[in-house]
């Protein structure tokens, strides 16, 4: 399985990508929404993208909206991983087409459990 990790913080990208690689994922990283769209255009399509909300150039909500508007990216599962923690913001992200939402700070355990809910936990790994 392959994951695209989108976050403007290198430290956060490393935390998320590191946790995913331990689960058996191959990972690619992008520092904002525009860079992430370029990764998708270059292909191949990953199984999962974790998406931060507040980023320079293109924010995560715009990225999610653009991905959902493109039929070629239908198979991509989108999970917001962000410090935006209001009820209304979660509603907005889901309405834009995000499949799951994980609020920072999060533990590696909770990341695994979200993947399990999405059916994206690789075989042989127990949440």
């Amino acid at each position, binding site marked *: 399985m392959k994951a695209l990790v989108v976050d403007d913080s*290198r*430290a956060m990208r*490393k*935390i998320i990508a590191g946790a995913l690689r331990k689960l058996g994922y191959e990972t690619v990283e992008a520092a904002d929404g525009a860079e992430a769209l370029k990764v998708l255009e270059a292909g191949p399509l990953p199984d999962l993208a974790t998406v931060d909300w*507040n980023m320079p150039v293109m924010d995560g909500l715009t990225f999610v909206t653009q991905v959902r508007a493109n039929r070629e990216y239908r198979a991509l599962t989108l999970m917001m991983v962000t*410090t*935006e*923690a*209001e009820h209304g913001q979660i509603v907005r992200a889901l309405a834009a087409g995000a499949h799951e939402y994980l609020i920072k700070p999060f*533990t590696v355990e909770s990341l695994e459990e979200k993947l399990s809910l999405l059916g994206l936990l690789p075989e042989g790994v127990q949440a």
Partner: protein
Amino acid sequence: MTELVEEFYDEPTDYVEDEALGQIVDAMWASYFAHTEFLLPSFDQHDIEGDIYCASVTISGARPGIVTVSVERTLGLPLAQSLLQEDGELTDEDVYDSLGEVANIVGGNIKALVPDAGPLGLPVVSTALPLHGASDRLAARLDANWKGQWLTFEVWLAGGGSAENVGG
């Protein structure tokens, strides 16, 4: 919108208190720094003397404000090493990035407590404390010790009646 908010909140900083800030910082430490020494909160204020790093994020909206994380300069590298789980040499960029992400995480969770908040700003890291608007009030503060050195978390929110003229 501002009048509406004031009807519900006599004291403009009531919705962010020390306890909430403490819970947020505690959750962050448990999530990303569990493998390190504990962060020990202090009941007393410990103003950091000497050189500092200060990471901050602004909160916009009806009650704008700023959330800051200040640390002794020498604490920047070990904090970044812990967050990144890398023992080796790190660049200044890595240190700024790590401190910025800490401010971002605390700031986003603080923003969720502020009524009618707008977008969160991107983190800014500097070697000086940010300036506050004259009417800003300290809504919450947490002093904590880690590896024998001090960190200060602060939440400043615009005071009553002057919500428009506050920046970060």
